[in-house]
């Protein structure tokens, strides 16, 4: 439901600026966030099917809107790139934070190796407290 809200807000901004033409180019890509930008004219629609809360979505839309406005006034491509990189970094961190914690096989081996040394040398006493 939340990603749908995100899409609606973006679309509203696009419509507020001008009556947008229907996309003339259709493209698809896979992945949770799959921007297809094949033209630098007209309307670009980002569809992000990742779980994003309303506050985050609003921040992203606000940033994108600011970037678009600045681009129009200053035409500073590098600044826009920098802002987009910031957004990508923010999204990656946000997505990473939502991923469930998990030990890979390599991580398990590393942890077992580190803990095994001391388990053999003496104290084998560990209390596990899981918070409920």
């Amino acid at each position, binding site marked *: 439901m939340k990603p749908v809200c995100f899409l609606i807000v973006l679309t509203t901004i696009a419509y507020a600026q001008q009556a947008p033409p229907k996309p003339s180019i259709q493209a698809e890509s896979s992945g949770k966030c799959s921007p297809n930008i094949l033209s630098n004219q007209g309307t670009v629609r980002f569809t992000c099917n990742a779980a994003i809360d309303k506050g985050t979505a609003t921040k992203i839309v606000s940033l994108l809107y600011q970037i678009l406005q600045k681009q129009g006034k200053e035409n500073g491509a590098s600044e826009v790139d920098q802002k987009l990189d910031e957004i990508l970094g923010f999204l990656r961190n946000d997505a990473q934070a939502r991923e469930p914690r998990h030990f890979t096989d390599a991580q398990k081996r590393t942890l077992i190796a*580190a803990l095994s040394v*001391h388990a053999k040398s003496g104290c*084998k006493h560990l209390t*596990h407290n*899981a*918070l409920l």
Partner: protein
Amino acid sequence: MRSSELDTFADELVEVVKEAGWRVESDVVALAGFEKGLGLGVVVRSQQEHPAIADILVNTLTNLGFKVEADTNSRVPTNEIRLVIAPKP
């Protein structure tokens, strides 16, 4: 209320610790002095009195990319490490 993420991760971690040859004494429902109650915590008696493995546990988990908070609690016996597995921050 425990989440499935917490349960799964706790089970994984306990399994790894057991596989390393350590005895996991009990699943106690307690904060154990880890006041924040989020993420991973390793609680020992004090900075001076604690098993050396506690430092290795914290360092290894941190190096593996997990955020671990070390804490002290005078109620924890000297030869004991309390591993707190709490919901994600």
